[in-house]
Structures are given as C-alpha cells and as structure tokens.
C-alpha cells in the first residue's frame, strides 16, 4: 500500500467498467498506461472493474492449437504460448504469480489430453478461454505489484450463459449469450472484496458448469454484461481510435468524430459498417441505462464517443454514412406472389434450406428483392446455384452481385428527406437495386453496384455536410475530423491566409474606396507555383489560363518557368501578348471550329485533338503535324464509374475504343501523335488519382510508338472548408515517381489552374442592407453572381468574412446574397458572422480562380475591378 492512496470507498460506491483489448495488454508500457487510467478512475471515487482480452495473437494461437491433431505439436504450441507470458512478466520484472501458474499448468494439461475427454467443442472453448484467464492473472499481479491492489475475478462465476431456442451445440459453446440484469448481490459480494478488480472478457459459464465463449466482439460484450450486472456509472471501451465516426475514416478522411449517440443510433452504425464496436454489445446496457464511452488508449485526452440513453433536443441530423460491400442480391419476380397466401413463406424456406441468411428486403407487388451477406457458404458452395434452381420453379430469379449497401443513419431520418435532395439525385445516376427504410426511422439504405462505392461514399459524405443534413456545425454532437486527429497531411489553419494577416488593412482600405473589387496577391501565386515545382517527376507544368487570365498573373507564372494551356484563340492571343516567346504553349480546345485549328497551327502552340471529326473531315489541316491526343479514360479503364449509366456523359476526350480508329486516320494524314492527354475533373484532393490516370495513359501509350509525353491534366484540389486537408504534394510526387519508374521513357506534363490562383484572389464587396423573413436573415452585398458565379453554378463553398468586424463574435446566421434578380444569387447560406452594418467590407475568399473570368454583365451591373498586390 502506498501512502498517498485515496480514501477507502463506501460500500455503495458506484462502478466503472473499463475494457482493454489485446494490443493494450501485450506490452509493459501499455500496462503502465492501464495502471494510470485505472488509478484515475479509482480516484474519481468509483470501484473499478477491468475487463481484458487475451494478449494480442494468443487467441489465434490457441485456435490453431485446437485445430492441431498431433499431441506433440499441441504441447509445443502450449509452451510457445506460455513463453509469451513469461516474456512479458520478465519485462515487468515479476515472478510468475500463482494464479497464472495454475492456468499455464491447466493449458498444458488440456494440450496433452486433447478433445477426447471433454468433447471437441467444449474442449476448444476451454482452451481458448485461457487467453483471457492468463492475461487477467498477469494483469492482477502487475497492478497489485505497482501499488494498486487488484482482485482477480473469474468471469465465469459472474456471467451465466442462457440456453436459447435455435441454439446448436456449437453456438451454445462458442457464441453464447448472457442475460445480464442488475445483480445487487454480486455488487455486494465484490464490494466486500476490494476496490479494483480485473476479470476476463469473452468467457462465461453455462448451466452444466462448462466454460463457454461469447463469440465475435466478445470482450466488449463482457464489459457490457458487467456494466449491467453492477449497474455501473459507465462502461469504458479503450481501443485504438477515439470513437465512432461519421464515416469509415479509411474511406473518408474528413469523417468527423461522433461525440454523442443514443444506443439505437450507435447500434445501427455498428451494424452497418463501423468496426470499432460489435453491435451486440450495446443491448445489455440499454435497459439499465448505463452509458458507454469509447476512448483511444493512446490519446486519452480526446473526448471519445458517449453512447447513452439521453438525447438532448437536437435538430435532426444524419449521424453517419456507412458502406457494406460484398452483398449478393436475389431478385424474385412473379405475378404469382400477388395476394397469394404463403408465397413468401415458401420462398424464404428455400433460403433457410440452403443455409443463406437474408438481410435487407425490398418488395413490390410482383417483385421481392433480398440481400445476402458474404458468408463462406455463399462464396464457396453451390448454395446460390441451388437456391436459384429452386426459386426458378416459382418465379423469375436474378442474382445481382457484387453489391454494396450504403446506409445513412440518424434518428428521425424521414424528417430529413427534404435536405437530402442532392444526395438522392446522386443515386439517381446509379443503378440502385434496392432501397430500404425501417419503421424505426433510423436508417435509409441504398444497395448499389459495389464498384461505385469507394468514390461514392466520400462524395456523399461531403454532400451531406454541404446540404446541412449532417450538421457538423453542431459541436456538441460532432467532434474533429479523423484527418485532424490522426491524419498526417497539414490542415488549413484559418489564421494563415494572406488576407487575414498581412494584407488585411490594405484590403479594408481598398474596400472602403470602391467595391466590388477582385484583389490578387502575387506572392501567393508564386508560393503555389514553387510548391508545384517541387514535383520532380513532372517534366513540364502548364498553367491552365482559363482560371484567371490577368496579365500580371501570366507574367508571374512565366517567370516561374510555367508553360500555358489555352482553350481558345482568344486565350492564346492574350497569353502570347504577355509572356515571352520561350514559354511553351498548349492549345487544347473542345469542339473548336476548323478555323481555330488552322490559326492555332500557325502559332508555336502544341495542338490537341479530342475527336475523330477533325481528322476525318479536315485532315489536310493537320497533315505532317504533331498533335496531342486527349482521351477519355472514362469507363473504358474502369474509372469514373459514376458516369456508367450516362456512359458518354462528358463531351471531352476521345473514347478509348476510338483510339485505334484515330491512329489509322492520323497515319493516313501523316499526323504524328506525340502526346497523350487525359483530364480527370477538378478539385481532387486524393493524390492517388493522378497515379491511376498516369498509369493508364502510359499503358495506352505503349500501343502508340510515337508518343513522347503524357499529360495528366490538372484538377489539383484546393480545400475550401476549414479543417479540410490540403493536397499532399510530397505524397503526390511519391505516387508519380512510382509510375515514372515503370515508364521512364515518357515525359510527364501537368496543367494545373485553380491550384495556382484560387487562394491568391479575393472578392471584396460591401454590405448594402439586411432583411428578415421568418427565421431567415438575408445579408445583402453589392455584387453577386454577376461577379462570382461559382456558388450558383457549382454549389461551390467560399469562405465569407466581415473584414470590418473580423474579430467580433459571430452571433448572427446570415444568407449572404447579391443584388441580381435571380433567386440563385446566393453567395453563401447559413453563415455565422458578426452582426453586420451597412457599408461593412465583406470578403469572399478563394476567388482567384474562375471568378473574374466567369463574370458577366447580367443585369448590366458594373463589373468588378481587378487589383494586383505585388
């Protein structure tokens, strides 16, 4: 006993159950960490029950030992397992405690005996239970030795498995259930024994006294059972991540931590994809209303996720989007099912007969479609073929796979439907095989082709946030993004922007003189340019001038050594009038008339073609010339699956299947294809996309001997929301370098636009008036979609600040609108801003790209002036 031990607890002190998984109990430093955490909970004045898993890898080793028929090898395996524990004890500088010694001896005996005496399953259950029995014995010794007196409790004396109908011997022994209701006598018994306890996850005892296992997610479930039995103050699950997120962080880096959930929501999220918690472990806590807290062992300072009964009044919000892959759908079509008694019962009996379990169900008068989870039975047996044969006797059957279920989870889903129109429109472009919404109103599930999911889920997550359906602005519910907590990329720090810091006063002065004005900050252009120049794999960079053709910007980029990509004679002329002769030029028009090509070929620009027509009809124009071929990798190479139904939904690029025809035409006219070009789209923040395009272009180029360079386009994303990760240029270089290694004989070109200039420009405008309408407040400014059309055209999000009141608290919620007679003239909706006054200077950020160049004289309002800050 140490002298600074906290005061003894009263017999009525409440409990905290803490569960630690296999990696958390495998090393000495981790145990030291556990000790600190347990001591801190004890210091809160609670009794603590620690529930542990087996040391990482031990459960698998025990399973392998069970599968081993050779006695000698079993004994070897038991010895190796014992050694793992001796090694850890060695690090702890502890002798083998008696409790652990007894376990090891028993394990050795079980290895020696084999399954004959107990029966295969009961023996296997008892063998596997030793993982937890040993780790907990070891833990008790360590905690007690380090001054925290800890009692070892055999979980089997506390958790009684119940026999359920439908259970066979295997499920009875290897995935047992416990009915855990608050048990004051257990509470009293343990309270007499001490203050800190340690026990095993994963194991229980059944009515005949045999040891049973709780199956998958067993240790978390044990913790919940104990939480319920002891009616604990809370159950803490300590794991390697801070809790549940709004999406799988591996798919969506911007997924946000969910700080508060109710049991049903959490269970739904766990059932539809989240791996952090097994869905079954929540139900024991629901009735006794014991909250669960998920915490990150390595980052205990993070808030974690609290799951409890309390749902304070919140605006309804989608909480999470998840995806489950590998589904197989069975679609059954028959007029026979209509109003026919027992039809479905007959149909479903076939599923049962072939051992296939049905998950989602969608039905119409003449069609029933169900989903099957990817079980071994489904993948490796004839079950589906046999099922289809049986079903074919009563209906038309179609097997659809591989599919994925995308589920939106949130309490009160139906009341949010109106906010989901954009999201639903996204599904309108896909093959949706089944939609399901349960009567508990917690979810909305779409089953789609699996191949679209990896790209779709991040996009939907973004759309849910943008549409205000996933209310990440509610900081009580939503914590930081995964990227912020665990990511490596830098996030946008709000304080960084040039307009917020060094140029703020200058901008205010400019705004007070006259508005609207675009202001461009050349040092930012140069900074972005230099950043891209660190891409050593890229042999040539072209600025896509359509983003912003201001001569000062063109000159600055020419000085940085950039080439220029132009899409019209007008752009070419503007560039040629400004940049030196030495700057390379590209002419990459789309549906340009014949005379554009004739003229462009009279300049020094490299000309691209992206359809057969020019060579078919104007071949002589190109005779003897070298050109670049722009291809649409589209679906041809397995990408852009979103446009699958639209197929040729984009007007750009030559479809891959026309490449051979193009080459024949080129040959016939003596035209040499010197480069291949593809462009992905824009706003792409994931470095891997360029690697894929590059790789695919290169494999295409190998079929064309004359190709010397590959142009992978631009589209480098610029994050707009605070907290979003920037494109990781170093990672991009790594991706490109790898592809270049495989295809060293091609030069690599890129043509960024927005990346270079977006952050360098702002639009300043002044407040003209306000209007209230119901609960909505409109803030009027002196320009709108005539100057900046991106919010109206692309739903683009631009940060808007009140430059006059930058440091005042943002207490008002405004719709920021312009003076154009269009209901779409909204620059930003639901913006938290300080209370504004007429004449305040407002700043719209990231307006350097596609701002001024897309402005129009609509409504004949004055155009915004452009100002350069050197």
């Amino acid at each position, binding site marked *: 006993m140490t002298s600074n031990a906290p005061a003894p607890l009263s017999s009525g002190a409440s409990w905290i159950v803490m569960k630690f998984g296999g990696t958390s109990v495998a090393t000495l430093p981790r145990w030291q960490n556990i000790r600190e955490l347990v001591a801190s909970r004890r210091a809160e004045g609670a009794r603590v029950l620690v529930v542990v898993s087996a040391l990482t890898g031990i459960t698998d080793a025990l399973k392998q030992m069970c599968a081993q028929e050779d006695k000698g090898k079993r004994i070897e395996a038991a010895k190796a397992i014992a050694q793992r524990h001796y090694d850890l004890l060695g690090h702890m500088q502890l002798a083998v405690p008696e409790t652990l010694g007894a376990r090891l001896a028993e394990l050795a005996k079980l290895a020696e005996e084999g399954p004959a005496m107990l029966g295969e399953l009961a023996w296997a259950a008892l063998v596997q239970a030793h993982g937890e029995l040993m780790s907990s014995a070891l833990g008790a010794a360590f905690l007690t030795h380090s001054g925290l007196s800890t009692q070892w409790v055999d979980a089997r004396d506390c958790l009684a498995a119940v026999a359920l109908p439908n259970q066979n011997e295997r499920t009875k022994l290897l995935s047992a259930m416990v009915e855990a209701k608050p048990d004051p006598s257990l509470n009293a018994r343990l309270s007499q024994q001490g203050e800190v306890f340690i026990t095993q996850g994963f194991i229980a005892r059944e009515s005949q006294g045999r040891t049973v296992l709780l199956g998958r997610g067993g240790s978390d479930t044990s913790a919940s059972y104990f939480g319920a039995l002891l009616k604990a103050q809370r159950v803490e699950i300590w794991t390697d991540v801070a809790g549940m997120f709004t999406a799988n962080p591996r798919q969506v880096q911007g997924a946000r931590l969910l700080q508060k959930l109710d049991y049903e929501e959490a269970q739904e999220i766990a059932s539809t994809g989240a791996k952090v918690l097994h869905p079954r472990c929540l139900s024991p806590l629901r009735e006794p209303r014991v909250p669960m807290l998920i915490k990150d062992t390595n980052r205990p300072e993070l808030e974690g996720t609290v799951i409890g009964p309390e749902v304070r009044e919140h605006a309804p919000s989608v909480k999470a989007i998840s995806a489950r892959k*590998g589904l197989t759908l069975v679609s059954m079509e028959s007029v026979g099912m209509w109003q026919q008694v027992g039809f479905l019962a007959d149909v479903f009996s076939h599923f049962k007969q072939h051992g296939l379990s049905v998950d989602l169900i969608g039905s119409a008068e003449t069609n029933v479609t169900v989903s099957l989870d990817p079980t071994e039975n*489904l993948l490796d047996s004839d079950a589906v073929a046999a099922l289809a044969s049986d079903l074919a006797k009563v209906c038309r*059957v179609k097997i659809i796979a591989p599919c994925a279920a995308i589920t939106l989870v949130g309490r009160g889903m139906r009341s949010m439907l109106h906010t989901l129109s954009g999201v639903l429109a996204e599904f309108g472009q896909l093959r949706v095989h089944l939609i399901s919404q349960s009567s508990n109103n917690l979810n909305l599930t779409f089953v789609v082709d699996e*191949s679209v999911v990896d790209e779709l889920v991040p996009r939907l997550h973004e759309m849910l946030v943008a549409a205000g359906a996933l209310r990440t602005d509610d900081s009580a519910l939503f914590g930081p993004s995964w990227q912020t907590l665990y990511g490596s990329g830098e996030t946008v720090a709000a304080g960084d922007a040039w307009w917020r810091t060094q140029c703020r006063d200058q901008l205010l002065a400019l705004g007070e003189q006259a508005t609207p004005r675009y202001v461009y900050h050349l040092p930012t252009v140069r900074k972005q340019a230099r950043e891209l120049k660190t891409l050593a794999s890229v042999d040539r960079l072209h600025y896509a001038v359509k983003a912003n053709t201001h001569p000062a910007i063109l000159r600055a980029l020419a000085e940085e050594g950039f080439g220029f990509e132009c899409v019209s004679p007008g752009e070419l002329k503007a560039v040629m009038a400004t940049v030196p002769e030495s700057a390379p030029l590209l002419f990459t028009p789309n549906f340009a008339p014949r005379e554009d090509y004739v003229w462009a070929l009279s300049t020094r620009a490299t000309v691209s073609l992206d359809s057969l027509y020019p060579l078919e009809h104007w071949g002589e124009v190109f005779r003897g010339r070298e050109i670049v071929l722009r291809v649409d990798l589209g*679906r041809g190479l*397995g990408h852009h*699956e979103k446009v699958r139904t639209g197929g040729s939904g984009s007007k750009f690029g030559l479809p891959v299947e026309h490449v051979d025809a193009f080459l024949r035409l080129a040959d016939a006219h003596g035209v040499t294809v010197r480069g291949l070009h593809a462009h992905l789209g824009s706003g792409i923040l994931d470095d891997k996309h360029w690697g894929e395009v590059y790789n*695919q272009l290169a494999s295409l180029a190998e079929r064309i001997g004359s190709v010397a360079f590959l142009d992978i386009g631009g589209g480098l994303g610029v994050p707009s929301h605070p907290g979003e990760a920037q494109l990781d240029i170093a990672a991009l270089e790594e991706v490109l370098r790898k592809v270049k290694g*495989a295809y060293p004989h091609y030069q690599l070109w890129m043509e960024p636009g927005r990346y270079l200039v977006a952050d360098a420009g702002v639009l300043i405008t002044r407040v003209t008036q306000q209007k209230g309408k119901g609960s909505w407040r409109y803030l009027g400014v002196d320009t709108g979609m005539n100057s900046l059309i991106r919010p109206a055209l692309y739903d683009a999000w631009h940060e808007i600040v009140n430059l006059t009141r930058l440091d005042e608290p943002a207490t008002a919620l405004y719709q920021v609108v312009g003076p154009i007679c269009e209901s779409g003239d909204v620059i930003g909706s639901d913006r938290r801003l300080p209370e504004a006054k007429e004449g305040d200077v407002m700043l719209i950020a990231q307006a350097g790209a596609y701002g001024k160049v897309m402005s129009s004289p609509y409504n004949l309002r004055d155009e915004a002036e452009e100002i350069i800050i050197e």
Partner: protein
Amino acid sequence: MTNPIQPRLTQVFRFVRCSYADGVAELVYAFDQGEELIERVRFPAAPAVPAENKHAFEAALKLLHLIAGVSYYKAGVPPKIELADGPLDDCTANLLDALYLHGLAEFAYRNGLDLRGRIAFPRSSEGRGEGDTLAKALHLPKRTLVPIGGGKDSLVAVEAIKQIGGEATAVWVGNSPLIAACAERTGLPTLNIQRELAPGLFELNRLGAWNGHIPVTAVNSAILAVAAILYGYDSIAFANERSASAATLEYEGQQVNHQWSKGYAFEQMLSEWLHTHVAVDLDYCSLLRPYSELAITRAFAKLTPYFDAFSSCNRNFKILGPKPADRWCGQCPKCHFVFLALAPFLPKPRLLGIFGRNLLDDETQAAGFDALLEYHDHKPFECVGEGAEARAAMYALSQRPEWQEDALIARFRSEILPQLDVAGLALEPWLQPSSEHRVPARLQAALAVIG
C-alpha cells in the same frame, strides 16, 4: 549528328553481334549503316558457365540474338537480313523464317503489309548436318523453369508441378508487379530476368517505325533456354493451351494467329532445335498443351488463394491497386473470355467478387462477347479460346437459373441460341484432354492432376 533514319525506308536489318559477360547478355542489331541498337538481358546472380556447357550456352545465346531481333526487325521490315556471323544451317533458318513470318502475321495484317517472300535468313549452301544429329547430354539438374505470366494458365501449371512434388522455379521476364505478386503467391523459388529494349527502338518509333504485335513468347522462350543452361534446369514448362494453335483469321490466303509462338508448331520446332543444337536433355514443352481453355479454367477454379492476385487482363497494369478494377479492365477480350470461361466453374458471387462487377449483366459489353462467340465478328486478336469454347460456356450459363436473367445471357437465349445447334454446345467434350503434347516423362504425372 547523322541524319535521322527513316525506319520504313531502311534496306538491311543486320544482326551485328551478341556477347555475354557477368550475367548480362548484349544483343546488337542495326538498320543499314545506322546506329547500333543494343538490347540487354540481365540474369540475376548468374553463376559461371562450366566449360563443358560452353558450347550449349553459346548456341542458346545465338538463338536468343536471332529471335529477339524480331522486336527490331519489325520497326523497318527491310527487304534484306544480314548476319555478321555468317549464314545459318537449314534447321535454324527454317525456325527463324517461320517465326518471323507467322509471328509477325498479325503485325503485318494490322499494318497492311505482306511479309511472304520478304523474310529470308541467309542459309549456308552446304546443308550442314547439325539439324539431324542430336546435341550431347549435359546432365542438367532435374528441375523445371515455369514461366509465370500473372494469368491463370501458368498458375495451373505451377500447382500441377507442385502437386507431383516436382522441383521448380517460378520465372518471369520484366518488371510487372502483377507477375511478381503471383510468383510470390506460388511459394516457389523465383527468378526474375530483366530485358532492356534498346533505347534506340523508342527513337525509331518516334521517327515513324512500324509498330505492332511481336511473338513475345518466342523471345521469352529463348531467354529461358539461355537461363536453363546458365542456372541448370532440364526443362522449361510453358502453360500454352490447345487453342493457341488455332488461327485467329485468314487474310489474303495467310493464316493469322495472334499467338503463333504459343502454338504447337513453334513448340515442336524450338524443342527439336534445342535437342539438336543445345542439349538433348533440355526439354521445352507446354504443360497445358492437351487442354482447352475451359479445362484449364476448371482447374484454376479450384485455386482460391490466387483469386485476389491473378489477372489475365491484357491492359497489363504496371502498378497495381487493391481493387478488382485495378487488375481487370472489364473491357478487353481477355477480361471477357476469362470471366465467361470461369463462370461455369465458380459460385457466381465468388466470380463477381474477383472481377468486381458482372460483365454479363452489362448490355454495353454485348459487342465484346459477340466477338468471342464469333457472332457478327471474327475472333479478336487476343490470346483467348476458340469461339466454340465461348459458346459452350455461354450455353452452360444460359441453362443455369442463377445466370439466365443477366442481360447478355438473356440476349443469348433469345437472339443467338436459336441460330445454334445445341448438340454442338456441350461443355463436357471440352474438358477431355487430347494426347498431343511434348511433356517429358518426368512431368507427365502433372497432366493427370490438371484433369
């Protein structure tokens, strides 16, 4: 600076010299009086060649020089071929004339060229007897080089040899990560030989060289013959199937076979040439020669551990991602054929998991599958099975309830099947092996394993 050469106007293709030192073979060629084109083949951790094997090694290296020249010859297809070493014996000249003519037949067809009468390797007038007498035995170690291609065929061959306890090495030429992943998955020792094309060839391409398909299996075979002598292997077991011998189409009286160098005719010629010029105990064969594509896919369907690693897609991704779309483009004839041929032998959800999509439930793929079935179209130029095999597989699926509602199967049932004679559509005959093969006695037990 010399004037840039115009490849299509060249007059002479010259085999300049070949040499070998420290694991690197240098193969040198030139057009007219142009710059030398130097190809290098790198043999990793190469042992010294024992003196008694020197002659055999030199012979194999010379053949490699002659065969690998096809990649360069085709850039200009000049009227004359010159050999710095002097003329060839009849047996060798016959082999090369046949290889250049038939192996480049598709290339010629695509480019509108006629190579007949154009290819004549110089032969010595005094017909040397070497073509008739066997080379001496070298007592090579009883182990097999199994080339791995990343597709299903070589994996079936590997597993068959593993099952009979044969000693083998998985070998491949080039740096495909797909193949490396598959080779590693076999658990066999691996050998990765590097082939560096002459950089000048890319330059020739830029200057407008002829381009197109070359008989790459012949080049790889010659590289492996060198490797067999160098490292000591008594056999090279390719995985070329029966249908590789079938012509893809006939064009102005000439048979055009996309995969001629995978065919039986080339196998026989090369195998005999090795026995007479290199070593009588070096066997060159294809383990899958008796089998149809369908029989091979049936064997492959049992090899679950390879399902997430292999690809037969000819898009030949050099960088692999984790998704099925990173290994299967889903558009090319190979993707179509492998999907169709595997379908009768795998549970549907498993097959769809391999490809990540259902190609037979996608109407836009109709033209591709029609081509496989030889419906409305000739057989595509890819290493795919005969149309009859594709039809048999399609017919089998059309009789399965779990497939028959899929778009292209339904279309087959309503549109194509009525035009076919069902009697010729059975799957079973395709699963019977033929007796035509050159598999040496030591490896014949592996044939039984394949089925």
